[in-house]
C-alpha cells in the first residue's frame, strides 16, 4: 500500500533555524500527531509536505507522488489548513465555497452543508465579521469538503473555545471512518494528540527526536515515587531523565522503562512506593527540559 507520505533525509535551512535529517512515514488510514515547542520545526515540516517550500536535501513523497515533480497531482488530493492562511475578509463563506468548488471537482457540497450546520456558520456573512473560532472552522470546512486523502493541519484546535474544539475533533474523527484517508496534525494541545493520534512525532530543535506508535511511546515512560535517600550516581542512569529528592521522597521520571527497574532501585537502597504511567503532557515537558531526550 502507498504511504500517505514518506520523507527521507529531509533538510531545510533558514537563517535562524534548520530542519535536519528527518525520516518519517505515515501509513494510510492513520493519524499522526506532531508535538514540539514553538520553533521546533512542525510548521516547516508541514509546509515541505504541502510543496509550499522546497527542501535543501532529501526526498518527499505524498500519496505516491514525488515532490516537486508531481506536486500538481499530489496537491489535488491533499488538504492543508493553517492559522496563517488568509481568507478574503470582504467575501462570504458561500463565495469561498464557490471558488474552491471550481478548482476541485471532488468537492462534496452535501458534506459542506452538513459542516455549515454542525459548525453553526453563517454562509452569507462576510468573513471579516467572523470570530477567530469561526474563521478556523470555515477554513477547515473549505479543506474537508474537498474530501482530501491526506489532511495536513497546523494547530487545528489552537485558540478555539471548548465547544468549537470538540466540534473540530469530532469532525476529524469522522474523517477516519474511511480507512483510505490520513491525517497529520501539529498541536500544542497534548490532550488532543493523546486522544486522536495513532503515532507521535516529536520534534526538538529541528530534529525528529522520537517517532513511535502512541501506545508504545506512552508505555516507554513512567513516574516512580520512592522512599529513602537518593544514592549517588543516580544521575548517571541513562533511563532516568528526571531525579528530584524532596525530604525522604525521591521522584523519578523514566524513559525506556523496563520491568526490572524497581528491583534495581531496591538494590540501590530505595523503596519503590508507586509506579504510574505518565500523561503525554508530562512526558513532553520532561523530555524538552532534558534537552529533547525522548
Amino acid at each position, binding site marked *: 500500500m502507498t504511504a500517505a507520505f514518506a520523507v527521507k533525509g529531509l533538510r531545510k535551512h533558514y537563517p535562524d533555524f534548520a530542519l535536519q535529517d528527518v525520516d518519517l512515514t505515515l501509513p494510510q*488510514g*492513520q*493519524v499522526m500527531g506532531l508535538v514540539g515547542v514553538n520553533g521546533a520545526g512542525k510548521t516547516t515540516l508541514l509546509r515541505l509536505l504541502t510543496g509550499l517550500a522546497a527542501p535543501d536535501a532529501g526526498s518527499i513523497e505524498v500519496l505516491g507522488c514525488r515532490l516537486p515533480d508531481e506536486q500538481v497531482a499530489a496537491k489535488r488530493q491533499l488538504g492543508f489548513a493553517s492559522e496563517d492562511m488568509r481568507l478574503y475578509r470582504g467575501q462570504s463563506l458561500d463565495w469561498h465555497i464557490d471558488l474552491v468548488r471550481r478548482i476541485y471537482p471532488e468537492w462534496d457540497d452535501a458534506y459542506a452543508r452538513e459542516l455549515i450546520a454542525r459548525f453553526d456558520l453563517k454562509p452569507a456573512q462576510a468573513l471579516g465579521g467572523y470570530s477567530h473560532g469561526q474563521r478556523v472552522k470555515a477554513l477547515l470546512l473549505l479543506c474537508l469538503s474537498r474530501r482530501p486523502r491526506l489532511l495536513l493541519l497546523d494547530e487545528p484546535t489552537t485558540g478555539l473555545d471548548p465547544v468549537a474544539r470538540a466540534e473540530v*475533533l*469530532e469532525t476529524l*474523527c*469522522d474523517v*477516519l*471512518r474511511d*480507512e483510505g484517508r490520513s491525517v497529520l496534525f501539529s498541536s500544542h494541545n497534548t490532550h488532543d494528540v*493523546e*486522544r*486522536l*493520534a*495513532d*503515532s507521535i512525532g516529536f520534534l526538538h530543535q529541528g530534529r525528529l527526536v522520537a517517532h513511535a*506508535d*502512541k*501506545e508504545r511511546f506512552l508505555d516507554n515512560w513512567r513516574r516512580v515515587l520512592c522512599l529513602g535517600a537518593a544514592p549517588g550516581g543516580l544521575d548517571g542512569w541513562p533511563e532516568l531523565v528526571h531525579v528530584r529528592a524532596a525530604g525522604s521522597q525521591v521522584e523519578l521520571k523514566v524513559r525506556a522503562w523496563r520491568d526490572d527497574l524497581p528491583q534495581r532501585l531496591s538494590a540501590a537502597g530505595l523503596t519503590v*512506593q*508507586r509506579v504510574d504511567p505518565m500523561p503525554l503532557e508530562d512526558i513532553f515537558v520532561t523530555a524538552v527540559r532534558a534537552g529533547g531526550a525522548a
Partner: protein
Amino acid sequence: MYQQIVDQITARVMAGDWRPGQPLPSIRELAAGSGVSVITVKRAYEELERAGVIVTRHGKGSVVADRPEPARALLEEGLRHHLQEAIAVGARLGLDRAALHQRLDVVLDGNPPTSQSKGSQS
C-alpha cells in the same frame, strides 16, 4: 486511555448489556464513535481478548466471549489493585492488619470514620 475503553466494555458485558456472541463494533467504528485513535481501541481489544472478555476471529471482527465469567477476572484484578493501594496508604499511616480490617468494616457499615477509628491509630 485504552484502560477506559477496557473498563467500559467490561462493565457492559458484566451488566448483560452486551450478550455473549454479540459482535463488537469494528475497531475503526468504535474509535471514530468515541473520539479516540484506532491504535488505542486496538490495544483495548487486545487486553479484553487476553482477559477472555471478547474473542477475535480472524477477518470476522470481535464478539463477546461465550462465558462472561472471565470479565470477573478483570474486575477481580482491579479490586486487588485498589486494595494494594489502600494497604500502601495504611502502611504509611502505620496501621496494622487488624486496624486495616477495622477501617474496612467501618466503611462497609457506612459509619462516619472519625467516631470509630480514633482508637485504632495508636
